Each structure stands twice: as structure tokens, then as C-alpha cells.
């Protein structure tokens, strides 16, 4: 039986510490009849300790187990691609971003001095070296294909969108009186933009926010914002909900939001909306969502301003039949982009 090893890094003791995609891939590959095992290596992503941990990963050997060869290695989160294997395949989800695309932004944590610049050079060199060993490189979005080209001068083999782990839960439903925003609540996901938009809304619909606020401090900020905009009656915080409840809420919204700033991929909530036959409102600077959301076709792509977001909601609310048509197209987007586990297995294993 063909032996497939999946390798990734993760942060122990944190739920969703980068392992959801690994768990789903492992289950899928097993379902397809392969002998599969997974290596999950703890990684502290503090930049000063990154290279020594890369060396640790490079030192591990995963080419053989109990005398039999491992046929295929699939690497997911950085720097698991530092592992050596004659048939190494990467499913690339992101760089150590603060040394790459977030360099020069407020998110940069590497110091802007000789040490920091040296680290950045070393990291790029080691990443590029180990990536070049891979027989196939797929990414989870076009943004990442571009970043690999720009920073590592590597041509990826293509985009392999990651499907939903539990797609069967999400089904079409009715059109309720709310727009849905499902995500961890933090500044980069920009729930704030949707909240501010609600002050310009005249019609009688609501904004439903599903997800936990990441810090107590941000929770206070969000509450203050709701207060300031005078939208207390129009914004409902659902907090954390079960997957089943989330599926019901998604099935019955008018449309879903994904307004995050410059994401690596389209995000699970976009796919949840698509599976539920719902259009998605996103922003021109949201990054990965633009791979799959086409303005006016399966959603709306608007400027990242409260007024533009308000206008988008009003438009879909006024023309519910159009929203439903876009929802149908949203559902078809899944097959148009071949967002299926079968394709993932085809590209990574077969």
C-alpha cells in the first residue's frame, strides 16, 4: 500500500493552531485508501528562534519507516518543507509573513537593523533552497503563487484551493432579515467595517456577528464602536456557535461577509456561504477572496469604506431575487474552481 506522510508545524495548546487543514487532508487521504501518517512539529514562530528550529526539522529523517520507504511527503505549514524527501510535495499556505509580505508594515516584528536584515536574508535563502527540492508546489491561493514568484523566484505548479472539511453540513435555506459575518473577531478581519456600515443603513435588516473576540481589549473597542455608531439594535453578537448552528445561520442569511484585510486565501466562511448558496460581500483589498469572488456574479467586491459596504447590503436587500441568483452562482463557483478533496488527492498524492 502506498505510504503517504503529511508534515506540518503547529502551536500546541491552541485550538485551530494551524492544524484544521492537516486533519482534513489526513482523513481524506486515508479515505482514498492510502496508508497515511502525520508529523506535527511544534514551532515557536518568534523570529530569532526560527532558523534553529528549521535546522531541527531539516535534521529529522522521514524517508523510511520500519525498513519500508515512505512514498510521498506532503508538507503544509512552514518550515516543514525543510524536511528531505525524494518525492516531496508542498501545499503551501503561507511564509513567515513578517519577513516577507508584511515586511515594512505595522505587522513586521523582525527588527529593522543589521540582525533583522541578516535574518531575513538567511530565512529567504533557506526557504528557497528547501522549496526547490519539492517535486510539486501547490498553494491555497493566487496571492501565494505571486508571493513565491516575487520573493523566492519559484514557479508554483498551480493553485489547489482547500475545500471545506465538513461541507455536507452547509445547505441552501431561505433569505432571512440579516447579513452574516462569521470569523474570529479582530482588527484584521475588520468586523469594524461592517459595524460602521450599519449606521448608514436605512432598511430594516440586521448584522449578525458569529465568532469569539480575540482579546478582552478588542472586545471593549468593538462595544465602544457599536455605541458610537448608535447601531446597538442593528448589530447582534452571537459569540461562538457550534458548526451545526453556524450552518443554519448561514443557510438563512441574505448574504455573507468576508471583509478581512489582505488574506492569504478566501477563508472557510466564504466557502461555507458558497455551499449554502449565498453571495459574499468582500473588499477590493481583501486578498485571497478575489480569487473566487467576482463582483456582480457570485458576490460584491466593494471599496473598504463603511458607506460602500452599506450600499452593497442595501442593494442585495432591495433585489432579493438577484441575491438568490448570485447565490446560485456562488454554489457553482465550487465546481468551477474544482474545490474538491478528490482534486487535492489527485494533485498531492497520485
Amino acid at each position, binding site marked *: 500500500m502506498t505510504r503517504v506522510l503529511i508534515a506540518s508545524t503547529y*502551536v*500546541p495548546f*491552541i485550538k485551530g493552531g494551524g492544524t484544521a487543514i492537516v486533519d482534513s487532508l489526513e482523513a481524506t487521504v486515508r479515505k482514498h485508501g492510502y496508508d497515511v501518517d502525520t508529523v506535527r512539529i*511544534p514551532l515557536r514562530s518568534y523570529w530569532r528562534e526560527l532558523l534553529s528550529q528549521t535546522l531541527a526539522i531539516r*535534521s529529522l529523517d*522521514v524517508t523510511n519507516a520500519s525498513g519500508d520507504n515512505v512514498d510521498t511527503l506532503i508538507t503544509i505549514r512552514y518550515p516543514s518543507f525543510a524536511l528531505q524527501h525524494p518525492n516531496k510535495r508542498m501545499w503551501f499556505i503561507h511564509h513567515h509573513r513578517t519577513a516577507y509580505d508584511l515586511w515594512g508594515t505595522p505587522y513586521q516584528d523582525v527588527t529593522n537593523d543589521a540582525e533583522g536584515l541578516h535574518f531575513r536574508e538567511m530565512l529567504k535563502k533557506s526557504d528557497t533552497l528547501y522549496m526547490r527540492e519539492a517535486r510539486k508546489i501547490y498553494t491555497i491561493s493566487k496571492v501565494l503563487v505571486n508571493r513565491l514568484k516575487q520573493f523566492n523566484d519559484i514557479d508554483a505548479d498551480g493553485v489547489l484551493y482547500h475545500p471545506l472539511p465538513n461541507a455536507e453540513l452547509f445547505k441552501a435555506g431561505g433569505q432571512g432579515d440579516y447579513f452574516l459575518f462569521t470569523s474570529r473577531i479582530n482588527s484584521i478581519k475588520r468586523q469594524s467595517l461592517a459595524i460602521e456600515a450599519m449606521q448608514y443603513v436605512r432598511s430594516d435588516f440586521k448584522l449578525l456577528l458569529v465568532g469569539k473576540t480575540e482579546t478582552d481589549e478588542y472586545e471593549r473597542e468593538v462595544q465602544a464602536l457599536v455605541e458610537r455608531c448608535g447601531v446597538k439594535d442593528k448589530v447582534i453578537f452571537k459569540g461562538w456557535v457550534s458548526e451545526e448552528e453556524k450552518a443554519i445561520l448561514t443557510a438563512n442569511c441574505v448574504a455573507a461577509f468576508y471583509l478581512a484585510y489582505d488574506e492569504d486565501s478566501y477563508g472557510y466562511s466564504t466557502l461555507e456561504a458558497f455551499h449554502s448558496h449565498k453571495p459574499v460581500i468582500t473588499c477590493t483589498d481583501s486578498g485571497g477572496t478575489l480569487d473566487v469572488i467576482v463582483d456582480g456574479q457570485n458576490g460584491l467586491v466593494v471599496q473598504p469604506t463603511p458607506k460602500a459596504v452599506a450600499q452593497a447590503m442595501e442593494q442585495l436587500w432591495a433585489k432579493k431575487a438577484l441575491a438568490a441568483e448570485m447565490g446560485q452562482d456562488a454554489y457553482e463557483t465550487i465546481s468551477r474552481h474544482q474545490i474538491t478533496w478528490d482534486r487535492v488527492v489527485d494533485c498531492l498524492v497520485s
Partner: protein
Amino acid sequence: MRVAIVNTQVLFVRGGAEYLAETLAHQIREMGHEAEIINIPFRWYPAEMIPRHMLAARLLKIDAGITPDLMIGLKFPSYLVPFPNKKLWLLHQHRQAYELWDTPYADIPDTPEGRAIRQMIIKADNLYLSEATEIYTNSKIVAGRLERFNGISAKAVLYPPLLQPEIYHAGEFGNYFFYPSRMTSGKRQELAIQAMRYVKSNFKLVLAGKPDGETYGKHLNSLIERYRLQDRVVMLGYISDEEKARWMAGACAALYIPFDEDSYGYVTLEAFHSYKPVITLTDSGGTDEVIEHEWNGLILQPEAKALAEGMEKLWSDRKRTQEMGEAAYQTLSKHHIRWENVLDNLLS
């Protein structure tokens, strides 16, 4: 409390150590604490692979985002991971560098390079084992080796209990001897098959478990064919715990005949919980810490003929065998094989 259990991962293999790590995590969670298992892969052949994996263990960080309150290390080389509050429940060191050196089971070559690697392992243990605040072992034999080879005293022996003892129960006196275990040369399923050549009575040998690699599984099958034992030896392959409990309950007795193991093995406990005596061998290692010859099992010479005779004896003297099964069950309380005992020490 947040506990990181750090274990060594052998790719595509699930055996006693993985099971122990999972049960330990489960028991810690039952006490209302958080527990997570962190696995670090290890390949030890050819021998030059060993230092690479030791280096990796020293360079990895288990406090990646949230710092645990306690690390519990189990096996070489993952117990080398640095951490301030580290306790060890030592299952074994890298045995090829210690008591297996100079035996046919040693796979580190006796060459200048091999000897240097062996020294490196011993020195790393001497240096880094002492970083632990407390060291427990899973058997007297492991504690004894630690003392003998590294001059380090373990605090106590904590015998590992089963995860779900309640699924094991007494049953009929069946016409087979049961040996459920990972299939690998060290467990010596081969010897059990050889013994069946000398058996005259009409009982069978039932083997269960997944072979570590395809090679050993094929080897066992070819032996069965060569000796025409197809009707006498049953290979079940991998079975669920529930199936295992059923097979155990219906056996005449259990076999656990590895070469020089560090502990008595889960098979022994599964048999004890099922009121079955266990046949083991004089060179099986930790089994003689709980198995007493003619009381709750048999301890035999490591030869196919002796093993065949032992099975014949248990098979023919049914009453005596059932008495030994009663004694087998009593052994559990005699040696305090309880989770409370383990957790009291590790979490204190």
C-alpha cells in the same frame, strides 16, 4: 494545570508507547487538567541517523505559544527537549547503546563510528537526563539500567495501568493461546510459531497485531507455510480493543514472549484483567516483575520446545490453569497498578 506529554514518534507505527501517552493524556484530562501529546519523529537506522535526531530534539521548542506548566518525557530522544519543569516517566532509553550493545539486537555497528555514536548517546543521557526535576520509570528493570549505566537514581517505579480495564472480562476456557502484540522481531512471534511444530494436542495459536513493516509479516506467513501450520496458527492482523477483549476472554492462556522488554507489557495486564495466566520467557525482561512462575503464569526457557511443553501443560491441567487465572487477577492490586498512583506522583 497544562501538561505537555512529549513522546517519540515512529512513523506508521502505533504501539505500547503511543497507547501509554494517550492513556496518560486521557487520565490527566479526567482530573480536570489540560494535556496534549507532542510527538517528535525518530529514525535510528543506520546509526548515523541517531545524532541528527538528538540534535533536533535539543533545538525544538514545546512552549511555542502557550507555555505548559509541566513536561512529561517518555522516550529517547524526545525526552532531550529542553524545558524547565520536566519530569520523566521513562519507558526506555536507546537500548541499542546500553544493554542491547553486544547482542544480536544491536544495530549500532561495532566500528569506530558506531562506538562514537554510542558514546554520544550515553553522554547526552548523562548530561540531559539530569535536567529533569524527577525521574520515574515504568519498571524496575528500567530503573536498574539507569542506575547501572548512567549512575542516576529514579524516584520510584510507576507501573502503567490499562486505559480501559473495564472492557476486559473473564470468559470460557478456549482451545487456543492468544498473543496480541505489535508484530516485530523483538516480540518473537516467530518463536511461538516454531513452538507449534512440537505441539501434539489439538489447540491453536492465535496471533493478533499489525506488523511493523511488511517484511516481518511476510516472514511469519512464510514460516507458517513452510511448517504446514496453516490450520494451527491463526493470524488475525489488526483488531479493535473490543475484539481483543473477546479473544482474550476466550483463551486458554496468553503469551507474552518478547526479548528483554523493559516492562511487563500491556498484553500481560489485559490477560490479568481477563483472569488468564501469562506464559513468558526467562529472557523477556520486565515480565518477571509481575509474573511468578506457577502462580499467575509460567516463566520458560526461550526455546520452542520448552514453550510447546508449557502450553501443553496449561492446556491439559485445566483446573490448575484456572486457579492461576485467579491469581493473575489478584496481581493487579498486589502491585498498585492504578492510575491514582501514577498521577499522584507525576502531577504533584
